[in-house]
């Protein structure tokens, strides 16, 4: 890994990232959280969908419009994506913690958000390049929606659907392992 090159790439990469989806989603979540707090209403599904949407935005930030132009540079796609993700996460995670702090109730753990986001990134790593980010960004949304819609029943299917909530750190670890295994793709 060429650390000096990656360090010098930080500023232009920051400029190359489309920040508006994160800022819009963060703003909306913050507004909803504030409204719920003012109404003293329980967060319910808003929390789950909020985490899923934030995770989807994190995954979507991997999308690089100039990816084709950069496809054959020595700094690999894996390294460029890691840099993008790190930059977006420095804004997204504090934003999510702020939303969690504003929401009424016990607050929201970081684990489920990371589990959903890591799962999406793992899918993006292994999908063909042309359509990876848009499909992968749907993973957190689909998984969280499925958990909300079908996760109430008993049985192994329910366990799988709610893994990201019940065992977020294991899910995150598994997803990160998959990402690392695909680093040369």
């Amino acid at each position, binding site marked *: 890994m060429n650390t000096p090159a990656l360090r010098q790439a930080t500023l232009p990469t920051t400029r190359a990232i489309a920040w508006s989806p994160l800022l819009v989603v963060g703003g909306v979540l913050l507004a909803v959280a504030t409204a719920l707090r003012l109404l003293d209403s329980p967060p319910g599904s808003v929390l789950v969908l909020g985490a899923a949407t934030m995770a989807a935005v994190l995954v979507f930030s991997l999308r690089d419009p100039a990816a084709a132009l950069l496809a*054959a*540079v*020595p*700094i690999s796609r894996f390294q460029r994506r890691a840099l993008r993700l790190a930059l977006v996460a420095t804004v997204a995670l504090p934003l999510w913690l702020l939303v969690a702090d504003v929401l009424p109730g016990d607050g929201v753990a970081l684990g489920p958000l990371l589990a959903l986001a890591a799962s999406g990134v793992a899918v993006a790593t292994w999908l063909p390049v042309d359509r990876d980010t848009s499909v992968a960004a749907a993973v957190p949304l689909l998984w969280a929606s499925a958990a909300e819609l079908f996760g109430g029943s008993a049985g192994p299917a329910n366990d799988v659907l709610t893994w990201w909530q019940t065992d977020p750190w294991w899910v995150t670890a598994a997803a990160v392992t998959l990402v690392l295994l695909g680093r040369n793709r």
Partner: protein
Amino acid sequence: MSTVTATTGLTRTVEVTGLTKSYGARRAVDALDLAVGPGVVGLLGPNGAGKTTLLRMLATVLAPDAGTVSLLGGDPAVPSQRLDIRRRLGYLPQSPALYPSFTPMELVDYVAVLKEHTDRDWRRREAARVLEAVGLADRMHQKIKSLSGGMRQRVALAAALLGSPELLVLDEPATGLDPEQRLELRALLSASARRGTVLLSTHNTTEVAALCQHVVVMRTGRVLFQGTPAQLRDVAAGRVWEEADQDARAQRSWMTAEGSWRHLGDPPAGVTVASPTLDDGYLLLAAGDPGRR
């Protein structure tokens, strides 16, 4: 198995054997052999011939399903060797998207960073040099979103030229360029070919005639022809004739600017055979005619 040997020097910079790539059931590149040395090599072929897939594999961007690839003496399938190849390679994909909010200077500088050039002064000088070489000296500080399609294409070309790579892989580099810019591109690529190998795909036979020492014609993932532009033109020798009217016996016909009909195929008795052009040779091959090689 298709075989291509287009060597313009003793050193082979690109060597592939049995190269195959499929998308689902469709075979985009089919057991292709290719050996290329320094110089400009043009890839001609209709849409869907497999040119872009081949170039993507030769740019280390796409892994083949089968076959071996050697680029600049390295194997792109081995990560450490792929890294070394990429340090010596320039790649221009087909109509690449850029960052609209960047200026050409910022974008080329960014690409230079990602090509591991960490000396800022050198990078600035090199970015200015390549932008000047593609005729964007006076536009290098304008936002890319304000540039025309041809100018954007030249920004991407400038990024590919960074560091004077030994192997340049260019997918339709002349797209969006006006005739004057095409002339400048030819001079630029000829100069690049003195330092290494330039592999380019194009639909333009004029480009090939003016620029390439060797030409490869592809169709449905296979090589139909390889040789010099003159040899491609000679494929149609004795198989072109012109008449005032259409001729059903011709394989291909079209009306010329002068109003007469130009025909390709086996000329009927009594007609006067015309001098072939590179277009004639290519069109005969693309029509599925094996030609006279």
